[in-house]
């Protein structure tokens, strides 16, 4: 089995060493990837930014409890005027200032990162699972199954994403009993559902295309000749050979999903106001042109949103370049 798997990528293993013309040394695909990736300083920087963001998000409760001594929903009404205008901007007391309820914008921004990452990671993960499964089936089985799945992909991709997302979210949150028998109610679950529902076709389309190509390769023929069944060939032979593409797709889907979550929350149909989210915070700042009086309510969550999506996008581009240097952007 393992021999079969290693037959395919062997072409890539033998490469000249830099600075040592004529000398050839075998390297694994991952070594090659790392060599290429670390040369891309922008991608490395983006990766570090993503890591820093994840670390901050994970540490948010610790920072709240031991450094700032305030939770994301702790009110500080002394820091607001009689009509709720925040009076405390960025300062030693509140690094990013406070919002209309006197809540600490710094801690809420970090908790917003937790929300964004949680929703986008889980949503993207669900998209991957569905997309990989259906893409493999379509590409490998072909025929009517392929036609059916491909047309379904076309249909889902042709739907206006934001409008559909708003419609579903409103339908499931406008009644307190939710929808689908109460499975989908107000909360992060509905946003994750929407991301998964509309994200899988992007994955499925790429996986299908790759499967169509890979299923004709020699290692697949070898596996079939060895007597392995379709399920084994799809998931143990073909799938591992498209990991690189899947990683790239996932990395590019994550920022897209972060933006979708932020857009829905901004429009008031995503994450409930009680849960800190960047879209919700930006919406709060935009409400009544509050940013004219408290710019920090808009700038900090907005800045984190931009940095995060930019970092994931640059990281995704870097991964794509490193994993598949022949691809064209």
């Amino acid at each position: 089995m393992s021999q079969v798997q290693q037959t395919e990528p062997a072409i890539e293993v033998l490469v000249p060493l830099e600075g040592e013309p004529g000398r050839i040394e075998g390297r694994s695909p991952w070594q090659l990837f790392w060599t290429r990736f670390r040369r891309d300083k922008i991608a490395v920087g983006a990766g570090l930014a993503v890591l820093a963001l994840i670390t901050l998000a994970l540490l948010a409760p610790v920072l709240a409890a031991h450094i700032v001594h305030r939770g994301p929903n702790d009110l500080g009404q002394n820091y607001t005027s009689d009509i709720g205008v925040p009076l405390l901007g960025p300062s030693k007391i509140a690094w990013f200032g406070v919002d209309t309820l006197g809540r600490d914008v710094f801690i809420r921004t970090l908790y917003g990162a937790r929300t964004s990452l949680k929703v986008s990671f889980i949503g993207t993960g669900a998209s991957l699972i569905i997309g990989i499964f259906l893409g493999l089936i379509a590409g490998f089985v072909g025929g009517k199954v392929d036609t059916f799945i491909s047309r379904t992909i076309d249909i889902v991709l042709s739907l206006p994403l934001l409008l559909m997302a708003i419609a579903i979210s409103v339908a499931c949150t406008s009644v307190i009993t939710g929808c689908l028998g109460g499975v989908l109610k107000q909360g992060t679950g509905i946003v994750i559902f929407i991301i998964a529902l509309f994200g899988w076709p992007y994955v499925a389309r790429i996986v299908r295309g790759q499967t169509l190509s890979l299923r004709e390769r020699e290692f697949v023929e070898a596996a079939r000749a060895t007597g392995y069944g379709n399920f084994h060939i799809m998931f143990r032979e073909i799938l591992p050979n498209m990991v690189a593409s899947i990683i790239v797709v996932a990395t590019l889907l994550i920022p897209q999903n972060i933006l979708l979550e932020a857009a829905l929350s901004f429009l008031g149909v995503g994450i409930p106001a009680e849960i800190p989210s960047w879209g919700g915070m930006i919406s709060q700042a935009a409400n009544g042109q509050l940013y004219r009086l408290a710019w920090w309510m808009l700038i900090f969550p907005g800045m984190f949103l931009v940095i995060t999506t930019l970092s994931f996008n640059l990281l995704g581009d870097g991964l794509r370049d490193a994993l598949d240097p022949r691809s064209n952007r």
Partner: protein
Amino acid sequence: MKSVRGRRRIAAAALGVTIALVAAACGGNSTTGGSAGPSGTAQKGGTLREELPEFGWTNNFDPTGEYLGYAWGVFDQLLIRGLMTYKHVSADEGGDTPVPDLAAGDPTVSSDGLTYDFTLKDNVKWGPPLDRVVDANDILYAFQRINDAKEIAQYGNYYCGVIVGMDCKAKDDNQPISGITVTDATHISFKLEQPTGDFLYRLSMPATKPVPVEYRGCFPKAGDMGVDVFSDGPYMIMGQDKLDISSCSSIKPLEGYDVDKGMTMVRNPNWDPSTDETRSAYADGVQLKINTSVDNIFNNLLNGDIDVAEGTPPISVLQQLETDPKYTGWLHADQGDRTWYVTMNLLAPPFDDVHVRNAANLALDKIGIRKQYGGELRGDIATSVEPPTVLPNSTDINPFAANTGSGNAQAAMDEFKQSRYDTNGNGVCDDGPVCENIEFLGRNTDPWPAMDQVAIQSLKPVFPGLKLVETDTSTGYTTLQQVKKLIPISMVPGWGKDYASPYGFDFFIFDSQGISCTAAVNYSLVGMTADQANECGVKAQYDAYVQNNGPIPSVDDKMNECVQKPTDQVDACFAEMDTYLMTTAVPWVPWLWATNFTSTNLDPGHVTQYKFDQNAGIISYVNTAVGNTETPVNVA
């Protein structure tokens, strides 16, 4: 009907207004009392231009069923004159007392208080193309529409069961009413089932205002007549003069009104100011244009594109209006005769225990909520059900004085220790599933999410299991109205008077008649009967309440007693009832006796005189003057 915007504002007692004036005066640039601000001279002419986000009608602007306070103001001030009206000014100028309008004078009331005889003015005419005198049969027809079951008069209970022969179950709008007699074109009398001290208030409501008999049978469904409201007032909807009323089928919707675009009203050429003592009708026209962006509305006001905007301005604009000397007098905070409150369901654990409801009253941070709602100008912190502008001295009813406004968590926990839902005596709700995931229903439109947060955070020391669920306002009301859902606690609703008497505030919200299975407005279920519980599918919860607490607290009998009292005893009677509500039933945590915000552009060429209509709870369009020379254009 659903929102506080849909409640009629009541009249105000001078003391209450005085208190409000003092409180509001602390706000800086704003004015109260309904007439301060502009320094120009009121003059005829020009067009009063307003933009608003939506109309929000409850019954398509059909006077028979419409239950939105704003609509009542438009009807009563501008379009339809009835037997009685108000002066369309603030309370301190007498705007909360019914005065004759079509009636030539006060009615003759029989000694037993059961018969009211009216004589009508003989020179008030319908606008074109009808061009005839309004007569008593037009008034009778309005009552026949109320009595028509299909018209669904949303406040028909003020007449059905009150006027002899009216039960709101007639098969059409052509059924006689034995208790209403039209002797000739200028004489009409009403026979009542029992003495009803506030009957004249009820006769000032829009559903009772005349409808031309030529309309009979033309609008058989609820709300249908809203696109063809016919005027005998100082203004008419643009295009009325072109209406063909020769048959029902020829009557087309008026061109000056589109619910999604706006409404333009122009002068009714048949209106004779000598017959009308309550309407100055300064402007040549009134334009009400729909603009869904509140930010844009207020930008247009500041830029001078419009003259008036109502409601809470965006926070940045509110700050400008309150603090920038350039805008001195632009913001008006007038008594709204309304109460904002948190409702608690008597049948929904843990709120089926009065100590729990008491604890909520002690814990709620009312001042914090008000801050998010617009600050002190938004009104006074409420301590009881009815605002002092409706029930004088209601500030004396304050059984939860330990909560001085900001919430008293310790007092709340001490109270909660007496409840059966505190298993370990620590003052916290901890009795298993009952105390976990207690749904707190709030609104999701700004500024309510922030207000919900303040409420939740202040209640959480006692109710750590509160779970906030937010919906749009309409869904919130619809949800609360369904008895079977048993929403335990909610900050969605507010309540304003229907008319300027305590009964006009309390009736629907606390009488058991305000409970219907899918359209209840008595959300707390005060006075619910076993039959109602059975019909609505909550008999098990009802029985559990009775078993644990005894009979459900009810104010039905007291309400009936109070409404029959002589005028000078009515307030004292209702004060007793409100005290009972706040100490024994405890269905609410009242948190604000609210004002109304109106913003007027006072630059030259805009508003030169501002008046507030206390009864309608909105700007008095008919007594506000503008200094522009614009002619009305159709915004619909």
